[in-house]
């Protein structure tokens, strides 16, 4: 699988640069946004595998707003929220709204990398399942085509056989005309 695309959102430029540096070093593709509005603008223009966003940011859109927009835009995007203060309520609310995880500031990078690795594995499994499903669909469509042709052909032949049977057993006709009618039937 290719590199995960990550969008890092935080109004504190030092945090953003720090996270970006660490993640780029680990070979992730990183984009950044300095507030919720900019994050939403970006996530509606391109797909991110993961959005790592601060919960509390100035402006109209906070971390929960970014989460909601991301999920609304593409259900496959995973969102990790970063909270400055340990707050179980915030974390529960975020998870309820579909966040995959939350981290506390100051960020423990080993922990962050571990979580990203988990998301990467999960996405690989999902891709694997999608590939298998697509392969199954192709096989299914191709065999369905063959089966349809055979099914219709056999259906026609069965009708023909029962018509011929009827003609051959028709007492109102002599042997000669029965045969003639059968040949006529087969020709049509």
């Amino acid at each position, binding site marked *: 699988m290719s590199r995960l695309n990550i969008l890092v959102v935080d109004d504190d430029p030092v945090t953003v640069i720090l996270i970006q540096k660490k993640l780029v070093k680990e070979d992730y593709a990183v984009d950044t946004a300095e507030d919720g509005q900019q994050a939403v603008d970006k996530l509606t223009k391109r797909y991110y595998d993961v959005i790592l966003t601060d919960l509390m940011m100035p402006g109209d859109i906070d971390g929960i707003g970014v989460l909601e927009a991301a999920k609304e835009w593409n259900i496959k995007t995973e969102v990790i929220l970063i909270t400055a203060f340990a707050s179980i309520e915030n974390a529960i609310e975020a998870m309820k709204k579909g966040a995959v995880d939350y981290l506390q500031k100051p960020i423990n990078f080993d922990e962050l990398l571990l979580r990203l690795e988990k998301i990467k594995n999960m996405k690989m499994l999902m891709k694997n399942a999608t590939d298998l499903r697509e392969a199954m669909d192709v096989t299914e469509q191709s065999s369905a085509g063959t089966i349809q042709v055979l*099914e219709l052909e056999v259906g026609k032949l069965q009708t023909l056989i029962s018509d011929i049977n009827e003609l051959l057993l028709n007492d109102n006709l002599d042997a000669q005309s029965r045969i003639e009618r059968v040949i006529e039937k087969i020709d049509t």
Partner: protein
Amino acid sequence: MLKIKPDEITLFSNYIHKLTGISIDQSKAYLLETRFGRLLQETDSTTYADLYHKARMEPGKHLEKKIIDAITTNETLFFRDTGPFDLLRHKIIPELIDSRIAKANGTRPSLKIWSAACSTGQEVYSIAIVLKELLAKGNYNIKLLGTDISDAAVTQASYGDYNKFEIERGLPKDKLIKYFSSSGSRWKVSDELRSMATFRKINLLTPFTNLGKWDIVFCRNVAIYFTLEDRQKLFSQIAQVLEPDGYLIIGSTESLTGVCPSFVPKRHLRTIFYTKR
């Protein structure tokens, strides 16, 4: 993983056939091992025979239900293979509605649709969406029934509640937004769609008593797990509950050749359907 022995395969093969109609031969050891691994642990069974005897002995039949849930395949998605739904929308429903209006003599015409192996409900709700988009509300008596052998599948179908992996599959975004509401990472079907359908457990190989007659029967991708003899039994039972001008839709890779002489295959665009001879 605990290996299953040949005589244990025979035990389970007979038992599962009796419970579900699913045919399992000696080559399916891996299937039984992967599907029953968790049940072995849950029930502290040391062998597969041990699990079998526990299931047989248990008066409440809870374990039996779990065995059915574990062995049935719930591979399904919204609008699985779009062909049958296009067929429904562009041919079957318009034709049936015309004929039912003619029959109804000014009363509300009725339409009865049965999804015989509905799994977790995606097929039923896909049909409900087509009906909803095609027919004016309140003008018709619609009966939409989903049945399945698995209690767990029927329960989930009844809740109409799906996780994001289930919802991502097959459902266009406009329909998702229109007919489902989200709560966190789960999605629930709207009350309006939910109220169109009923669900219950049915074993397709037991006699269809009190089932009534149906205008359209969906029986897709379930007979593939049955022996030829059971398939013959199933489709002749379906022929009996299908209205004379009714429609049968089976899976796209299934065939009724040599299975049921009561049905004639027909084609509309790229989809095959069956009517009674």
